[in-house]
């Protein structure tokens, strides 16, 4: 049976602080230890302490990229968890498989028996308080319950528990083992299994890591060789800094907690000017504040990576909620015209590799590069194949692994530093010997940088328009040449690099029923919808670009030409990617399908809309899930 396809979604919900999130993390690690894949979507309360929290863990024998439509098993730590998920439980009656509800029966009893729902009451709190005499073991008891009920491999969970508590000493490990056993025992003594769900036997574990989204950004940046990180805390970006700080120091770099976001970017640009790879991470409000310095980076041609862990906007918005509404500001914020690039991650794993790519683009083209991710990705964790970083003798660093957007490997790029030895003919020197930092006639628009300390290429930078040797000057000829130089870099990027970010494309048919273009977290959900549509006999083409600016029109145009209709699902109001595609390609008939409720799509919503579009022969327009269901669906 080990080869049978296995796919199970377990949701754990309850009061923040009761170990709900930890329980989810244990399940994820257990999956990895048992040789399976997992993705774990966490949702923290908006309040500092308390409030509703949950963790949805999907465990599977194949790589999975979303947590699915809802869950098979709900482990509810309190009544609120049941209530919050009632909409899903009620839906069980329309579904082929039953839903299982494991709940803390200490203070809660379901009011009605729902059709096709199987109930397992367990007095979790009581067991924790009365038997274990340690309320904090509640989540471990619950794990024991789940393990016994669904045959989740005991050794794998226990190893996960041990790995976590080892540092705190043998006694603590033992106590948690005891709690776990108590849960198992309770099931054996009190419950009779009537549901069909079970974990298969453990397999030989693969070489995997488990990372959260922000952690993957941090690790990827370390692999890219970042040396300076400027931080100002903001939900949901803060933890990129939490995750990177120690690694960075151990790599000889430094994290500086700035007084605000304007400063963060200013400092990072200073470090970049001083010759180091530099970055900052923030969320929407921080991007707004950085706008002026972003524009400055554009004209001074300083390499910089800005991570935007998006949250619900506008204003202070919904800091703990998912949204993809910063594409506009990343592409068009900051005054004036200047070149920049935007990469966007669809999964945690992407975050790792795209962080490396973001530094590569920034250093190669000397432009601001945005790495866009979001609050849901930030705190979701995934099991994925361990990335391999080879540090060669010659200083080269090569990143390998199962890079999800289809490239073989990524060689870490370092900026082009002026070397007089390579410039014997003095191409980058003026007749009077001045360094031509901004020579305008290189074919790719790229010119060598120089860093403080080198007596051969002393120069100043300024945010004013300038001559090739960096003096402020506004004559039309110089201006036009410098603008052309700067934008030529983007043309080069489109020619030399864009293709690597456009490989995650699948063409079922030259005249497919539907094509999907999507980005960010939504892409990982659209992917599942596409799979289901395909299973239902539709031909579906898929395209998940990782590069969102600049846009290589031909690729999108050709892709779109092979389908009867193109849907662009994204979680913002304007349909921001579709907007950009309409402006930059010859495509008019794109269908924007948007949700702006602060939550990610579920696969079913995209699946259902695609079917509706096919049936009603929709070719263009702007739609929301309300157009499919007549009401706002909240998929919490």
């Amino acid at each position, binding site marked *: 049976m080990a080869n049978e396809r296995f796919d199970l979604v377990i949701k754990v919900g309850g009061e923040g602080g009761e170990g709900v999130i930890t329980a989810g993390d244990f399940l994820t690690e257990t999956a990895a230890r048992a040789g399976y894949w997992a993705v774990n979507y966490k949702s923290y309360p908006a309040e500092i302490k308390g409030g509703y929290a949950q963790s949805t863990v999907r465990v599977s024998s194949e790589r999975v990229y979303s947590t699915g439509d809802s869950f098979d098993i709900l482990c509810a730590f309190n009544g609120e968890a049941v209530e919050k998920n009632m909409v899903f439980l009620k839906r069980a009656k329309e579904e082929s498989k039953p839903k299982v509800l494991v709940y803390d029966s200490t203070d809660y009893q379901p009011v009605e028996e729902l059709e096709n729902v199987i109930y397992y009451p367990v007095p979790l709190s009581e067991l924790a308080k009365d038997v274990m005499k340690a309320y904090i073991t509640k989540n471990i008891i619950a794990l024991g319950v789940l393990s016994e009920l669904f045959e989740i491999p005991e050794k794998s969970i226990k190893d996960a528990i041990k790995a976590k508590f080892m540092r705190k000493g043998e006694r603590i490990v033992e106590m948690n083992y005891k709690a776990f056993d108590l849960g198992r025992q309770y099931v054996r003594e009190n419950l009779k299994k009537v549901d069909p769900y079970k974990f298969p036997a453990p397999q030989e574990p693969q070489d995997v*890591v*488990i990372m959260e989204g922000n952690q993957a950004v941090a690790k990827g940046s370390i692999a890219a060789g970042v040396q300076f990180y400027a931080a100002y805390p903001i939900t949901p970006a803060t933890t990129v800094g939490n995750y990177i700080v120690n690694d960075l120091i151990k790599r000889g770099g430094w994290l500086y907690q*700035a*007084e605000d976001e304007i400063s963060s970017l200013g400092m990072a640009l200073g470090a970049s000017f001083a010759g180091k790879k*530099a970055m900052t991470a923030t969320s929407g409000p921080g991007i707004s504040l950085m706008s002026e310095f972003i524009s400055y980076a554009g004209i001074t041609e300083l390499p910089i990576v800005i991570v935007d862990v998006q949250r619900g906007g506008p204003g202070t918005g919904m800091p703990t909620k998912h949204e993809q509404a910063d594409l506009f500001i990343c592409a068009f914020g900051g005054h004036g015209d200047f070149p920049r690039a935007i990469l966007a991650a669809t999964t945690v794993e992407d975050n790792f590799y795209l962080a490396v790519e973001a530094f590569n683009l920034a250093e190669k083209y000397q432009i601001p590069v945005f790495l866009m991710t979001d609050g849901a990705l930030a705190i979701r964790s995934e099991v994925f194949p361990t990335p391999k970083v080879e*540090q060669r003798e010659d200083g080269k660093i090569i990143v390998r692994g199962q890079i999800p957007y289809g490239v073989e490997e990524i060689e870490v790029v370092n900026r082009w530093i002026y070397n007089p030895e390579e410039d014997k003919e003095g191409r980058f020197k003026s007749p009077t010997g001045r360094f031509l930092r901004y020579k305008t006639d290189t074919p790719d628009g790229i010119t060598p940088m120089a860093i403080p300390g080198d007596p051969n290429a002393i120069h100043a930078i300024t*945010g*004013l328009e300038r001559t090739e040797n960096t*003096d402020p000057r506004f004559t039309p000829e110089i201006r036009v040449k410098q603008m052309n130089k700067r934008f030529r870099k983007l043309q080069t990027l489109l020619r030399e690099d864009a293709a690597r970010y456009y490989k995650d494309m699948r063409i079922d048919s030259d005249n497919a029923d539907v094509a999907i273009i999507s980005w960010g977290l939504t892409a990982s959900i659209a992917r599942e919808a596409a799979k289901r549509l395909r299973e239902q006999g539709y031909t579906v083409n898929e395209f998940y670009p990782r590069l969102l600016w600049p846009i290589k029109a031909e690729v999108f145009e050709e892709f779109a030409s092979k389908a009867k209709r193109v849907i662009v699902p994204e979680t913002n109001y304007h349909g921001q990617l579709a907007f950009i595609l309409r402006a930059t390609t010859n495509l008019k008939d794109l269908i924007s399908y948007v949700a702006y409720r602060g939550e990610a799509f579920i696969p079913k919503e995209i699946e259902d809309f695609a079917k509706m579009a096919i049936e009603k022969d929709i070719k263009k327009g702007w739609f929301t899930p309300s157009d499919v269901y007549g009401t706002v669906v909240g998929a919490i």
Partner: protein
Amino acid sequence: MAVLTAKDYRSEVEPTWCAGCGDFGVLNATARALAELQKDPAKVVGVSGIGCSSRLPLFLKGYNAHTLHGRAITFAIGVKVARPDLDVIVFTGDGDMFSIGSGHNPHVARRNLDITIIMMDNKVYGLTKNQISPTSRDGQYGSLTPYGNIDGHINPIMYMLTFGATYVAQTYAGNLKHMTKIIKEAISHKGLSFVNIISPCPTFNKFDSYKYYKNHLIDINEDLGHNEIDNFNKAMEMAIHWDDNYRDPNNTKAHIGVYYKVEKPTYHDRVKEVQERLGREDSIQNLINVCKPKAI
């Protein structure tokens, strides 16, 4: 290396200042100070914001950066933290540093970053053609406040003392010798040094003229005997004393001299300690592998 003279610290770019602008003096004094210290021009980084004064680094030879209005300090911090081997000097104006940039001053000072800040205080916004700045006098004309300044002025010296700067001095653009000495001291100081330079703007600020200062300067060290410069309370008293004077236009005496100088661990000293404490990891792979399920 041959001995460098002040000229060797000047770039090819010609200043665009008005004739008589005090900033010429500051430029000269800076070049001289650098020459007297025989600094390597390739390792001096001048960073500025926006303003007439903030153009200064473009006229100096070095890896200089003319950044954004009010943001020189942020950029300078990035340079210094990334490259502690460089001498980093911020050139700024009263508007640049104490209006739009005022949020950054406390934070660079309290950390005692080893950066020198040279502010050209003309008590006006020069580049935007005559608006009052935080150091403008009561009643001073500004194009946006034609009825005369009613905003109250600030005392940069008191501010920087309060914020924790470890070297605080004032000098005058008309006194090349004093200026050069102070700038030299400031650059040599280990820690955050702040030099306020009274720098006349003959174009827009008619009151704070060379003529005026001819009769109003006192050297706090020489004339007022302020010598216990490592005493914070005394420095603060002296700063308050100046401020009291300043508020009375008939009795105004403008100070020059060193208010405060004290040695304290710099930010970099503390960073180094942490870096040593945490140690180094040469393998990137190891840092990734910690994300694997831990071996049991």
